[in-house]
């Protein structure tokens, strides 16, 4: 018996490198990679309930076709308005900008085939997304879940970064009670998103919510924000930001407190004022951290679903539907193929955005600082 246990422990010691990492790899293979492949298959098929089970029929790209050009286009991409001449010019400007960017890369002497392909994908997809936004935000246009998701992601992350950084800068000063504020500002991160959704529904209620007197005084006493597309989207965005500003705040505050104090003191001796110290010393010092938190938030923000689902149920109409919610609704209507297709589109947009950000922005800040 003891010789067996000795043999076992010797075996496990020799195999330790494999044994340590195996659980993680297996779990990810089984619950991420395998489902991902299965899901691709689902996206390429039509799902039908039949007696005693279901039936999957391979239909090629038709689910994607439906989203991009067919009956679900209004839902996914949106309804297009006319793009004005000025907006075409704007788009051309962006395209030219990307062109120059790639040109400079080619001239830099460090160009390789992968770098070139990656940059071309980034440029094409981003230009395409800008065109889409211009088209659906125009006149008669109406954004679908893709543009709504982009709105949540980009507007949300920008707002969270600006406010989070501002609060962190204020709290990094030598003031009384900073620990108190730090503790308080941290709280929203822990509240369940479902709870936040309900809380903001209460708060935003113009007749029964706490701000009802103010709305009345402003003459909006019977304004129903949930019926107006943009006000509904903004309420979702505010709820989401309320939860995630603390994340930016807490990490950036730690980064600010972590920067070497002597550099700041040296700058003070050299005669730098508050703004100059921020611009020349603090910002370069925290830029890699900023890039990382923005990346983390980009990744997570694309997954938004709880808030729009509960706050507005995706409405009015489809106005606040994020892509995840879109996929969920498709699933509920037994359209598994459509649901997977939306999921895959989300994956594509997320990966292009995050990888572009990582390669072309986050890495830059790191190099400059390393």
């Amino acid at each position, binding site marked *: 018996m003891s010789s067996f246990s000795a043999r076992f422990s010797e075996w496990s010691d020799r195999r330790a490198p494999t044994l340590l990492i195996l659980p993680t790899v297996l779990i990810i293979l089984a619950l991420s990679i395998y489902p991902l492949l299965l899901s691709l298959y689902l996206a390429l098929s039509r799902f039908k309930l039949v007696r005693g089970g279901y039936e999957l029929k391979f239909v090629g790209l038709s689910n994607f076709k439906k989203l991009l050009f067919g009956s679900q286009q209004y839902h996914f991409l949106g309804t297009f308005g006319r793009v004005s001449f000025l907006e075409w010019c704007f788009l051309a400007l962006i395209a030219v900008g990307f062109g120059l960017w790639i040109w400079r890369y080619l001239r830099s002497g460090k160009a390789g085939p992968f770098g070139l392909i990656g940059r071309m994908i980034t440029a094409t997809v981003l230009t395409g997304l800008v065109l889409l936004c211009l088209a659906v935000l125009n006149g008669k246009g109406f954004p679908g879940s893709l543009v709504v998701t982009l709105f949540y992601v980009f507007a949300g992350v920008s707002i969270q970064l600006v406010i989070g950084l501002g609060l962190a800068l204020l709290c990094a000063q030598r003031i009384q009670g900073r620990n108190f504020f730090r503790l308080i500002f941290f709280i929203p991160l822990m509240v369940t998103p479902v709870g936040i959704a309900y809380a903001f529904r209460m708060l935003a209620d113009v007749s029964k919510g706490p701000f009802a007197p103010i709305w009345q005084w402003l003459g909006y006493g019977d304004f129903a924000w949930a019926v107006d597309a943009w006000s509904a989207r903004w309420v979702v965005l505010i709820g989401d930001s309320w939860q995630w500003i603390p994340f930016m705040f807490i990490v950036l505050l730690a980064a600010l407190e972590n920067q070497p104090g*002597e*550099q700041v*003191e*040296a700058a003070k*001796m*050299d*005669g730098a004022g508050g703004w100059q110290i921020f611009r020349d010393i603090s910002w*370069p010092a925290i830029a890699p951290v900023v890039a990382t938190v923005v990346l983390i938030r980009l990744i997570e923000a694309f997954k938004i679903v709880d808030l729009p689902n509960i706050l507005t149920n995706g409405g009015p109409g489809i106005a606040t539907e994020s892509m995840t919610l879109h996929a969920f609704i498709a699933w509920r209507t037994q359209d598994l193929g459509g649901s997977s297709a939306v999921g895959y589109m989300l994956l594509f947009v997320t990966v292009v955005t995050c990888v572009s950000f990582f390669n072309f922005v986050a890495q830059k800040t790191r190099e400059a*600082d390393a």
Partner: protein
Amino acid sequence: MQVSLRDIRKSFGAIEVVKGLDLDVADGEFLVLLGPSGCGKTTALRMIAGLETASAGRIYLGEQDVTDVLPKYRDIAMVFQSYALYPHMTVEDNIGYPLYLRKVDKTERARAIREVAGKVDLLDYLDRYPRQLSGGQRQRVALARAMIRRPSLFLMDEPLSNLDAKLRGHMRTELKHLQNELGVTTVYVTHDQIEAMTLAHRVAIMKAGELQQLAPPREIYNDPANLFVAGFIGSPPMNFMNGEISSGAFRADGAELTCPGFGDHANVVAGVRAEDLRIVEANAGELQGTTYAIELTGNETLVTCQVGDSLVIVKMDKDYDEKIGTAVGISLTNQQVFFFDAESGVRLRPLDS
């Protein structure tokens, strides 16, 4: 520009770390603040810089009271122990940053940068980042950044402590030369006595937040004001023996030294430097003991002898050798003996002088 501290005090919470410092630094002087770790040197320096507020007392730069003036209005440059170089700026930008903040135009700035960079031998490194430099080069960047705007006062906090021994010696020479050339008043903090002795016009020795002695290096060595200074300066450290003075002679276990002119005193510490002693035949000389250890350091031999219950180090030339445990006598080569009150550490002097 001359600097004056008037009864400067600093407390962190309940602990007073600088206890009433009075100091006058003359225009163009190189003053070194010397003291053991934690005695408040950095704190004193930071108060002069304005990075720390004094709890009490006043600081004057020239005629002006700068006690409550912000650092940026003081016209002081400081070299930090860690150098505090800006990691994301090139050497050129680091050096030029003070001028950039003062909105000096580009060509003028570039000229000034090249001038100071030439002085500290950095012309070939202007495009590099601090992380690509060696310790000594970083130190010179910090120095150049401090020099470029011709401040009225230089402050340096152990600028050489991060360098290896050889480079430290080299940079010491450079520093002394540069300070002499620029003629800028300098306050320099260190806990290394060699640095203090070689660099300073005058040395200010601190202990636990209090000034012990302020004098030129030679005077500090030859005429220490108290027991602490005597023991702190010199290598090997001064030999001390506990005893008493009565009727013109110091007596201790195994020692008898004449000291004409000193009044009777019961509790005395006598101090003699190793180079003022010689080993002689047993029973000759003023001290009697046995050899305890013999160390050859290269150009001389340090002989430690047990005299009574204290150990006395004698500096002999490099050929001296003897068995450990041999009884020897020790004689004074000149009459350089210092006497201190054992309780207060105050130097005792002959009554009639």
